[in-house]
């Protein structure tokens, strides 16, 4: 996958580019807004990672201009500014996701994967499958190996999010943001407890576990 990184802090840029390349992506980099915009408009990228504050052309402006030119590349904003209202501003300007510095690289990677996945929607899906686990989005019923699984509404949403990102690492913050719509860090790790409840419902009594913990990163649902 081809990724554009626009970041003026060269140290951070080097780390980001190196990390993404090691993860198997093709990366172009720019250190200011103008160069970033030129690259974004002249080549096709799967995702752009854009710092909020850039010399020459501000990150918000950059993305707004990309959108004005009809460029729909998913954008992940990185920001060292304070959070409360900046997220809203970033998303309004056309950003698709927002990450505050300092971030864990796995978090960034998981979000980039999620953005790429969103880019290629496989039509409107009414059913999700992972191994022998099925989720019917219309009847809101879950089944594993033909056995019905009773889920609370929030558990259903949690499982749906995990299954939509099957095979991908999903971080706790991503779950909190997407399933609960909270953008703050609960002091205790409440997500882990929700996951272990869900795991008890879908994996208990089955030989092959589907819901895996990815150490130091988050969770992943996959068939094998």
């Amino acid at each position, binding site marked *: 996958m081809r990724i554009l990184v626009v970041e003026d802090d060269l140290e951070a840029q080097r780390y980001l580019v190196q990390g993404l390349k090691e993860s198997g992506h093709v990366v172009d980099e720019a250190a200011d807004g103008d160069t970033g915009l030129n690259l974004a408009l002249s080549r096709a990228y799967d995702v752009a990672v854009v710092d909020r504050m850039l010399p020459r052309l501000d990150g918000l402006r950059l993305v707004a201009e990309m959108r004005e030119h009809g460029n729909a590349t998913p954008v992940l904003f990185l920001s*060292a500014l304070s959070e*409360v209202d900046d997220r809203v501003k970033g998303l309004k300007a056309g950003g698709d996701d927002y990450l505050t510095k300092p971030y864990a690289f796995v978090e960034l990677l998981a979000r980039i994967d999620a953005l790429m996945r969103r880019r290629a929607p496989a039509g409107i899906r009414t059913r999700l499958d992972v191994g022998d686990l099925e989720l019917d989005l219309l009847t809101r019923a879950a089944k594993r190996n033909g056995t019905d699984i009773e889920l609370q509404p929030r558990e259903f949403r949690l499982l749906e999010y995990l299954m939509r990102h099957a095979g991908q690492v999903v971080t706790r913050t991503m779950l909190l943001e997407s399933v609960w719509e*909270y953008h*703050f860090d609960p*002091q205790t790790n409440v997500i882990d407890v929700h996951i272990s409840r869900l795991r008890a419902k879908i994996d208990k009594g089955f030989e092959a576990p589907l819901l895996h913990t990815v150490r130091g990163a988050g969770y992943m649902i996959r068939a094998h």
Partner: protein
Amino acid sequence: MRTKPGVLRTQAFRIVLVYVLLFAFSVTALLGFTYWNTRRTLDAQTDQIIEADITGLTEEYHHFGLPGLVETVRSRTLHQGQALYLLVDHLHHYVAGNLDPWPQISDQPGDMVEFDFERSVNGHMETRRARGRILPVPGEFELLVAQDVHDRYLTERMFTTTLPWTVLLILLLGTVGGALMSSNMLRRLDTINRTSGEIIAGDLSRRVPLAGSGDEFDVLSENLNRMLDRIERLMKGLREVTDSVAHDLRTPLNRLRNRLEESLARLQAEGTQAGEIERAIAETDQLIGTFNALLLIAETDAGTTRAAMAPLELGGVAADVAELYEPLAEEKKVSLVLMPSSPVAIEGNRSLIAQALANLVDNAIKYTPAGGTVRVRAAVTDRGVELSVADSGPGIPQTDRPRVVERFVRLEASRNSPGTGLGLSLVAAVAHFHNAELLLDDNMPTGLEATLRFPQTAIRPLPTTLKNAAE
């Protein structure tokens, strides 16, 4: 914002009313004094004429006796004038004079008398007022010497009937004038109040419009505007400082975390144990967490955050947060109970209120021993809209309560449990941002009840989408 007062309750109207009353009182006193003085002078003049008359008649009587007196009275009454005479015998029968019969005395000021009599004026009989004196004449005769004072009497009557109407008119005109004046003032004040309200609601760019007349209201508005310019400048400065502090600290923290991750990856690739690096990353994350919390508290407390306000249903916020923490409570064998509530919407920021409530619930679960209960409740009371979390933990001693909302304050008892010591400070800052109060009370029989009390004025009609969701 306070509701605007009616015209009749304004200070301006009250001042005008007091002034009008004072003015009416002065006018009454002044006119009363003039009336009294004029009447005294006129009466003295009349009395002088009568006294002179009596002196003349007495002399006649001394020289010529009763017949002389009768003759003089007759000659003096030949021409109709102001002077009135009546001489009667002991049976009060007419002897001489231009009055008949003996009149009914209606008033007796001093040794003078006042009475009404009939007289023909231009062919009509008329009742007129006279003032005079009664003299005994030897032989049981009585002589009444008087002056016609009807004109003075009429003036007097007119005066006494007009005065109450005059005062009434003064009061009426004064009140109407006062009301007009205060409604004008009120309109000007209303403009200032409305603008202030909008500014409090968060639009710092608003300014009070000037009428251009350069009056005291314009001066006040100009001063307010200057003050607002300054506040806006300060707020902007503060925001810039927060932004640069955030940027200048986050950038190196980001590099630090990147390097630690890099080292960790390298060591792991070489197959070396890297526990130290992992712990360093955890410490860095804790540092970042504290920094983020501090920044959020500072911004929220100063009101510099542009956090969007929208109507939100508190029962829903409480239910969501309770739902998020329920598995955690269960794991700790604490029962988390969401109390039923009728739907109530307030104007607020969902993220901030949810975060504050999450902090309270998190604390409550942390400090409640196994088997205990944590209750979450959203309710409308007569003191406001309340969002409260009650636990059955050890509670907070009364004396420590004001301290726990301060930044970094952690009580001895909890010194070694995890946490930044900023949780309650953030709750207090969120309360402050919403004009709400954070109350810490005893929960009977044991524990703490933390309540966020939003003012009645924050209540908003339920948005239809929320209403449907609540049903």
